[in-house]
């Protein structure tokens, strides 16, 4: 098998791109007690369209039932009406409104819909290396955004013995997106 890196370009390459969902990861982190609680969503589907003039549109979605954490009971709690309410709002969606680049840094503004509530979000990140294996080009994109879970109607908490809430409101969403040419 011949593999070669044809070039290193850290701007969004033009064309239509599909997500390689096997190698991509969309996760979340939230402060819990004395540490950080992490989870991820799988599968995630997404599409990136980059026009010749450099403008781009990113859309994506994930079924809520694809949330993965390390304990099945915690998983069940996340699917319940207190958190994502998988029964009534089975999908998380994102649609960009504006994508801007500066060097290999990228900012994606758009609307993130969770639990039936659509709110504007701003994700920042970096465009990774582009490579071509065989005749198929690939490139990576890392994005990170912060949301306030309570704005999406996820208000669960429990006070710790010191009186502070166990779970933070600010949640970091991080996406490592691995794109292949559509």
């Amino acid at each position, binding site marked *: 098998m011949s593999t070669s890196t044809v070039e290193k370009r850290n701007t969004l390459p033009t064309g239509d791109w599909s997500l390689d969902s096997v190698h991509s990861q969309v996760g979340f982190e939230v402060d819990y007690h004395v540490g950080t609680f992490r989870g991820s969503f799988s599968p995630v589907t997404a599409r990136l369209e980059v026009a010749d003039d450099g403008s781009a549109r990113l859309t994506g979605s994930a079924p809520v039932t694809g949330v993965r954490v390390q304990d099945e009971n915690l998983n*069940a709690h996340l699917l319940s009406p207190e958190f994502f309410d998988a*029964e009534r*709002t089975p*999908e998380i969606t994102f649609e960009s409104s504006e994508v801007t680049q500066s060097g290999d840094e990228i900012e994606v503004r758009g609307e993130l819909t969770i639990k039936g509530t659509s709110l504007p979000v701003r994700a920042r990140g970096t465009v990774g290396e582009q490579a071509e294996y065989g005749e198929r080009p690939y490139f990576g994109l890392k994005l990170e955004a912060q949301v306030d879970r309570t704005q999406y109607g996820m208000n669960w908490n429990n006070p710790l013995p010191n009186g502070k809430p166990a779970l933070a409101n600010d949640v970091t969403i991080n996406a490592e997106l691995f794109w292949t040419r559509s």
Partner: protein
Amino acid sequence: MRVLGISGSLRPDSYNTRLLRAAAELAPRDVELELLESPRLKAVPPYDEDDDNGAAPAAVAQLRDTIAGADAVLFATPEYNSSVPGQLKNALDWVSRPFATNVLRNKPVAVVGASAGAFGAVWAQAELRKVLAAMGARVVDGELALGHADTRFEADGSLADEEVRGELSAVLDVLIAEARPQPVAQAA
């Protein structure tokens, strides 16, 4: 539409059971509000995780079936020591297993309460809502805290006060609306 009423009191003449009977009288015609008989709650054995390893005790299995067969559940709880009566919590601990698939998961539920004191079991109600939400139930916002319950019922068991009847009806309406088939949000 079938609504199950569960009183947290085991007393046959309980104010909370009377409150649920009053709710049954106020229910719309297409809604059947049936009360869980208090001996069935009393029959639930103490929860012991070592006993929770296969077929549930008969009283537990029947309680789970009854809840599963209801479209919604209306709880009326008394308050002991600022919290939920032990037997109600014990029964819910049984009902919550297995946790991920328990019969209250996604079930619309409402909580009301009555007490002989001034506050109408507000703290027990808050704790019960917390417990039910943790189990995955769909806890609706409506509430009714009936204080001085010993003065609030007529001899025939009906609620004496029109305003209280209205508040109870409002809770029931919210619960019933939540239990009606809901559109599932579609992605844009």
